[in-house]
């Protein structure tokens, strides 16, 4: 793996993140690097910078990674997680402005055909940009 753009799904709820990831796997297939995280370290709703960093490493692709988030802290923590990644990787990681479920499926569909990072971002954001 490493050719197609990776997808990281970050939700306040682990159930939402896992559910969206299941949809990607079952609808799009397995040729897209994919990782998800959700919930805070205490087991409640929230997001964790450390968990996002781990997910970024799991879904890493030389073509880049898009992060799909649900709201608020998911976005700011994702930006902090990007700052903790090796400097050369940071420009290849994008937090997308799209619906977490549909955007993840659409981004993965685009990625599955070998699209560039920018095209994958556009697919993820298409529903919010009309």
């Amino acid at each position: 793996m490493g050719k197609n753009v990776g997808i990281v799904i970050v939700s306040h709820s682990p159930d939402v993140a896992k559910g969206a990831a299941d949809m990607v796997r079952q609808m799009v297939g397995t040729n897209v690097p994919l990782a998800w995280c959700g919930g805070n370290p205490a087991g409640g709703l929230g997001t964790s910078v450390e968990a996002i960093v781990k997910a970024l490493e799991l879904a890493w692709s030389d073509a880049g990674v898009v992060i799909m988030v649900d709201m608020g802290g998911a976005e700011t923590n994702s930006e902090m997680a990007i700052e903790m990644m090796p400097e050369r990787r940071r420009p290849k990681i994008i937090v997308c402005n799209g619906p977490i479920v549909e955007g993840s499926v659409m981004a993965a569909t685009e990625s599955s055909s070998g699209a560039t990072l920018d095209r994958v971002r556009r697919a993820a954001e298409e529903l919010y940009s009309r």
Partner: protein
Amino acid sequence: MTSGRIKVGSVLRARSQVVLTHEGGLHARPAIKLTQLAKRFDSAVWIALAERGPWIDAKSIARVMAMKTPHMATLYFAAEGEDADEATSALARLVESDFADGGDEGG
């Protein structure tokens, strides 16, 4: 399913049409398979619900899903480019086969 070519301006455009027999219409999963197949071709590929259009980019998953194509609708495909004929007939075959093939691994 039928396929052929028509002339649009000075360009010969490959065409095909097929009835969508898939139960439930062109919902998420078949729409994804259709888009993934369309993207394998270098040609520009369009899809429409009527012969006169509007023609929609068949490589855009958001736009193909937004068509909300119902069960038994006739789908029209058009393509322009080197592999246009292959693209339009492959897409019609995918629909005709009830989306049995043409998906990616694990899809």
